[in-house]
């Protein structure tokens, strides 16, 4: 029997009568992380990791939330549920479900590289593993974070030396904080868009050390942004909001920037291929480490990863979900499944 199935409401564990990251309102939702395609509005009760709770609250308002520590077990109608680090963003978790000796794990979104902010990914031994596949093609192979951060620093330094602002587009929850925590803050002042600063505050409140940032709206003086690094969500790119920065160089920090055409099509000066999702070797390594004999592949390069795993002898199947599907496939729209 399948412990977890895809239903019209979301991934469903019938033995425990709960859903994982449901895309329609349900009575009990177990949440992997706070991104909007995984943590949706309208369910009666939510369960998530402790660090994820404030993010969920910020996103969904005053809802009923139960929080667990990583590794802590909870009995839900006779099913043992526990949350394990996924390394994706602060408080992100893989959901481990055990019932009558059968263990399933749903990954949500994950990455293997330590980013210095979120709890590092831990493989969960299981019989069946439900894996994302956002970057499920061999062309996605990330360079080490330290190398990319050096590129970011260099780009910022050079702009600063030439008196320009550096506008860095990054997803507001997770990516922006990861970059903030790792950038060389001695280069100049750092400003954040109004959609990003409140998330910084949540991160800081949970003990994540981030350099000092200011709201863009609070900048004083005509040349406030010359030499500054400005974090903004990708939707701000090429919008009238950008006019205030005068001369600036812009960059997008996203796994999609691995492909030159994605960057050129959107007209960014720079693309930093840094992602909170696993790259191809990462996906294979994570899947292998679970020891699972069955793998279900969700959102991303579903077809390619499923076929590759099948050809290497695993029982791999596609699983249809509504997580960041269209974006993930094309890389042409909003380039990263949040």
């Amino acid at each position, binding site marked *: 029997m399948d412990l977890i199935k895809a239903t019209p409401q979301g991934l469903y564990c019938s033995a425990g009568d709960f859903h994982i990251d449901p895309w329609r309102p349900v009575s009990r939702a177990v949440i992997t992380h706070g991104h909007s395609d995984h943590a949706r509005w309208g369910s009666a009760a939510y369960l998530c990791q402790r660090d994820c709770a404030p993010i969920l609250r910020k996103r969904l308002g005053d809802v009923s939330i139960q929080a667990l520590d990583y590794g802590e077990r909870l009995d839900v109608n006779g099913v043992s549920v526990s949350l394990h680090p996924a390394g994706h963003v602060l408080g992100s978790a893989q959901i481990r479900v055990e019932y009558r000796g059968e263990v399933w794990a749903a990954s949500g979104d994950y990455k293997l590289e330590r980013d210095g902010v979120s709890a590092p990914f831990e493989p969960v031994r299981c019989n069946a593993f439900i894996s994302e596949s956002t970057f499920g093609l061999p*062309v996605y*192979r990330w360079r080490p974070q330290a190398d990319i951060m050096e590129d970011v620093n260099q780009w910022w330094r050079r702009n600063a030396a030439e008196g320009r602002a550096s506008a860095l587009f990054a997803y507001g929850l997770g990516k922006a904080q990861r970059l903030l925590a790792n950038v060389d803050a001695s280069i100049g002042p750092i400003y954040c868009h109004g959609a990003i600063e409140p998330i910084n505050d949540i991160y800081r409140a949970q003990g994540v050390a981030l350099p000092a940032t200011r709201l863009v709206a609070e900048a004083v003086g005509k040349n406030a942004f010359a030499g500054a690094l400005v974090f903004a969500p990708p939707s701000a790119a090429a919008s009238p909001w950008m006019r205030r920065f005068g001369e600036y160089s812009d960059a997008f920090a996203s796994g999609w920037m691995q492909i*030159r*055409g994605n960057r050129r099509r959107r007209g960014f000066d720079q693309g930093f291929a840094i992602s909170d999702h696993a790259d191809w070797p990462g996906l294979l390594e994570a899947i292998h480490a679970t020891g699972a004999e069955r793998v279900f592949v969700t959102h991303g390069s579903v077809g390619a990863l499923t076929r590759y795993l099948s050809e290497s002898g695993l029982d791999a199947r596609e699983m249809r979900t509504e997580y960041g599907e269209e974006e993930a496939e*094309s890389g042409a729209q909003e380039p990263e499944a949040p």
Partner: protein
Amino acid sequence: MKAFAALYRELDAATAIKRKQKALVEYLRAAMDDPARHASAAWAVYFLAGGKPRQLAPTKLLRRLALEEARLPEWLFEECYSTVGDLAETLALLLPIVDETEEATLDQWMRERLLPLRAAPEEAKYKSLCGWAHKLPQSQRLVFFKMITGELRVGVSRLQVAQALALAAGVDAKRMAQRMMGYTQAGRVPTATDFAALTAPASADEDEALKEGQPYPFYLAHPFQQPVEKMAEALGAVGDWIVEWKFDGIRAQYVQRGGQFQLWSRGEELVTDSYPELAELQRWLPEGVALDGELVVLRDDDYAAPQDLSGLQPFALLQQRLGRKVVSAKILRDLPVVFIAYDLLEQDGRDLREAPQEERRGALEALVVDATLRARDFGVTLPLRLSPLLTAPDWPSLYAKREEARALGVEGMILKARAGAYGVGRRKGSDRENVWWKWKLDPMSVDAVLIYAQRGHGRRSGVYSDYTFAVWSDPPEAPARALVPFAKAYSGLTDEEMRAVDAIIRKTTVETFGPVRSVTPTLVFELGFEGIAESKRHKSGVAVRFPRMLRWRIDKPVAEADTLQALRELLPAPHA
């Protein structure tokens, strides 16, 4: 190679022209200061200006390299390639990461390794590629494979390269354009001496040296796109303009100096050998001339006068003359090429380009008529014509006359300021001076249905942006009518429209064959094209030129798209 790869990344990253220019000039100056770098810089200029060495290694070998070295099944490689949209980039991303690397200069790469590769047997070629791939620093991979695939475009035009060189060398941009003529010619192997010559200070000897066989940079026309009511306001009196047909042929320059002649195409290819019939001109034209004009296929059985263009054949026939290494007697008989002259750039060895258009035209007429008449006296019909002048009392009348273009098999008109000089490249001054306007006919168009889509390359990589279009085989009342594909197009949509179409294609996919998807027909586009001809190679029986999307007909149901009959009605009347 390291410096070139770094320059490539800089150019690729900068979106502003100013920043690209700065990076180029910095690279060139650094190379000028160090003679050891001249040879590599000569190659860099060659590649950036659009030079492409003849195929160094077949793409088949590059694919094999990816499959074997990255240990991927073929289907997965294809999936990657279609996502990335560029073979060189796909390889750069897929090959294993190596620790130990080796540095070689761009010149060493080209001269000692890549150029000799062509002559090697296939297995040896593959072995070499493999060995190199293992030692190539990560940061140089993309540029390396792009050198091999010949797709090194990086958003820098030839003109920008010339401007950067001019700036770095401190010489006039026009002189630099002239120095660069022929620089990217096929088969050319640029050297340190070439780079030194390109960047040398201007000298008097140079003027002499430049003349040997060198053509002048072609002056390009700009599209004129204002409505006819605005023409008087924009361009002044019609009488201030020389008006000619815009021929649908190959732009070329005929240069005759020092007892020899050369024929150059606009791509700066020396094409003298492809058009042996033009050799006759040399006997009748004087020394020290350079003519600008158009190569066309023209059957001159009833030759009457230099301005007589009856017998002009469609471009499709000229196409059969392109790229031939051997031109047979039959080809010469069936597809005779003539040179339609429309400007005189040099006479008696004197550069006339600064003289007013009108004056050059006068001299050109005298020259062509004189040569033609002398040849006629000996019973020779020269493969040379004079582009006829078109006149009209006002712009609306000229507009009406333009409609004759289609019947004549030309693309529209060219307007040249009477007082204008012959400029360089596509530089633009005011709308009325020193400018050539191309005033093309509105394209023909039909409403066609999108039936297949493929992901694009370059800027469009990863997006379903390349489409195959079809029209109906029969009118709506026919019970078994089908959609017949007739054209492929990828340009004309805004980025936003492209994304919307991309999303619809993903939702309406019926089948996937490799990179191609067939879709449920739901999308209708007005498809524009410049010309249409019968074609046995196409299922539809017709081939169209420069098809592109003019408009997304959201308002139009698929059933109301045009039929093959409507398309065929646009075919030109059969030529005599």
